[in-house]
């Protein structure tokens, strides 16, 4: 099987293999680069789980799926010594618009994920793992199946791993097309063969997860980072090495998917805390010699940043937050000076409307409402009152739903209006002007009866 490599622009050999490696998805290549050393050592020496958890805490590895919760802390929540079945689950339901890193990890470095999950199983006392991949991921699925077969034959998966007495069985589970299944409790329901509707929390998955059993769910990149962290760049369990690659509160390296109006779109595995301006330079700068207008730094759910804010920010949790946004899934969407921000927000809102699972009223009704208003404004039928309604609806969704999809729909609206409100006003006023100019129709655009004609 040949797999295209060209989307990896920069690799640190933690989650992404660099281009010098021949067929990095094979067991042979992975082992030649330190792969499975960590698992072998742990199984041979029966390393206490608490030591591994402490190492992960010290590495400052934070969840790469979007929430940024420390991985070591999450693993410590599992009641590892409790009786009964426990599960580790990988969230490979990558669907946040602008995110394309997990697909490359699955295709190019499947063994890193397998090793990370198996170590997770060992630490948390789970003998079964599921890797939930989105239904469209056929190629990653096939690569994973083949890699899991290799791992089973080598004794890294299955019964009595390397004669240690520890069992770990890993299975691939394919979704069937639903962004919401990236939400961890919706994912659990989907794994149980149900609609992907998020569950109330608490209880949290660590106590009541898959089939009601203790469960830990981590993102693909989080699991795949674990083996390299424990190898510690040549010094066993030297997780300080990983921490020091990054900055305070943001340990290590992370994959950023740089897409949109940029010369070299691709995945960049870089040190946390790298200035955005440097990342942009690596990506060849804004395409066509144009100027930067705005950036969404973490996928469509996080607030948009005007060029002036992002240019002074670094790619880490604290810096992006201080400058008004978030790392999210590390999906850096670049927009040049010609970008129509109303059109972008219309597309984003359409997405959340389409993907709301429909369980909570504020989200089910609100996302449609937001989309219809923005579409109306973009089509030139908006009113000034619409701008207030837009913000009002967004504010009333935020924090009032079972899961974060409602917030994710609200944040872009709030931030686009905050930073680019003038573009929305301009579209409204352009039409007001037209109406005012045509005799007898002055103020028509402000008439709700007309305004709703486009809101079906």
């Amino acid at each position, binding site marked *: 099987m040949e797999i295209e490599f060209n*989307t990896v622009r920069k690799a640190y050999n933690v989650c992404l293999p660099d281009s010098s490696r021949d067929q990095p998805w094979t067991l042979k290549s992975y082992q030649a680069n330190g792969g499975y050393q960590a698992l072998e050592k742990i199984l041979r020496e029966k390393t206490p789980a608490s030591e591994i958890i402490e190492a992960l805490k010290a590495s400052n590895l934070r969840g790469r799926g979007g929430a940024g919760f420390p991985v070591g802390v999450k693993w410590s929540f599992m009641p590892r010594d409790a009786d009964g*079945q426990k599960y580790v689950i990988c969230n490979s339901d*990558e*669907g*946040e*618009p*602008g*995110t*394309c890193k*997990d*697909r490359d990890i699955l295709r190019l470095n499947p063994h890193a994920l397998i090793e990370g999950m198996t170590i997770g199983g060992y630490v948390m006392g789970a003998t079964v793992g*599921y890797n939930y991949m*989105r*239904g*469209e*991921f*056929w*190629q990653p699925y096939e690569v994973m199946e083949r890699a899991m077969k290799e791992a089973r034959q080598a004794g890294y998966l299955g019964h009595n791993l390397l004669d240690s007495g520890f069992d770990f069985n890993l*299975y691939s*589970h*394919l*979704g*069937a*097309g*639903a*962004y919401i299944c990236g939400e961890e409790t919706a994912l659990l329901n*989907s*794994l*149980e*063969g*149900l*609609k*992907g509707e998020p569950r109330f929390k608490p209880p949290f998955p660590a106590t009541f997860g898959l*089939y009601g059993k203790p469960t830990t769910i981590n993102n693909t990149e989080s699991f795949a980072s674990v083996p390299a962290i424990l190898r510690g760049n040549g010094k066993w369990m030297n997780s300080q090495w990983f921490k020091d690659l990054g900055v305070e509160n943001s340990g290590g390296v992370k994959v950023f*998917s*740089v*897409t*949109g*109006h940029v010369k070299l*779109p*691709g*995945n960049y595995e870089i040190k946390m805390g790298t200035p955005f301006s440097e990342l942009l330079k690596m990506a060849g700068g804004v395409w066509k010699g144009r100027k930067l207008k705005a950036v*969404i730094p973490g996928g*469509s759910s996080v607030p948009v940043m005007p060029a002036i804010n992002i240019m002074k920010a670094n790619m880490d949790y604290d810096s992006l937050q201080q400058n008004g946004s978030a790392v999210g899934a590390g*999906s850096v*969407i*670049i*927009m040049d000076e010609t*970008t129509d921000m109303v*059109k*972008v927000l219309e*597309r*984003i809102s359409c*997405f959340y409307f*389409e*993907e709301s*699972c429909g369980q909570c009223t504020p989200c089910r009704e609100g996302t449609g409402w937001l989309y219809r208003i923005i579409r109306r404004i973009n089509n030139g039928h908006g009113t000034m009152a619409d701008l207030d309604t837009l913000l009002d609806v967004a504010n009333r969704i935020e924090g009032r739903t079972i899961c974060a999809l409602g917030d994710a729909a609200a944040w872009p609206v709030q931030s686009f209006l905050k930073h680019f409100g003038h573009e929305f006003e301009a579209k409204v006023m352009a039409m007001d002007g037209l109406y005012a100019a045509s005799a007898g129709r002055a103020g028509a655009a402000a008439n709700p009866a007309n305004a709703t004609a486009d809101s079906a």
Partner: protein
Amino acid sequence: MLDKVLLSDASLQEIDNELDKYPKDRRQSALLAALRIAQEEHNWLSDELIEYVAEVIGVPPVRAFEVATFYSMYDLKPVGRHKINVCTNISCMLRGCDQIVNYLQNKLGIGFGETTADGKFTLKEVECLAACAGAPMMQIGRDYYENLSPEKIDTILQALP
């Protein structure tokens, strides 16, 4: 128990393989896969087929209907031999998916959700497929096609049986 057999032995075997992944008393976990396998054999999921899958898995029909109607990859009416899924989300939009969509619609003479008269192609608009670094992109069947241009689309479509 099943008075009519709607799936081939190969498909039923594949469903059994999926069932092996889950605890014996958790057969419903294989429901998503079973519907996918049934759809692959029959091109689309009729009500009769959904009920049949429910019976194979051993769940009430309503469970299978819930799933079949919730997830976007299930087709509840016939589709063409090749389903073309074009991403129009932000990263693809910023890199000109409008042009790709126009080109496909003109070339095939159909809009989104429609099938060509010869039953060869169905065109679908989809949300982000996580290949944003190769935008604009589309998926046909199981395969991704990235960095699309009209010329590239001509070559891709021509190669399909």
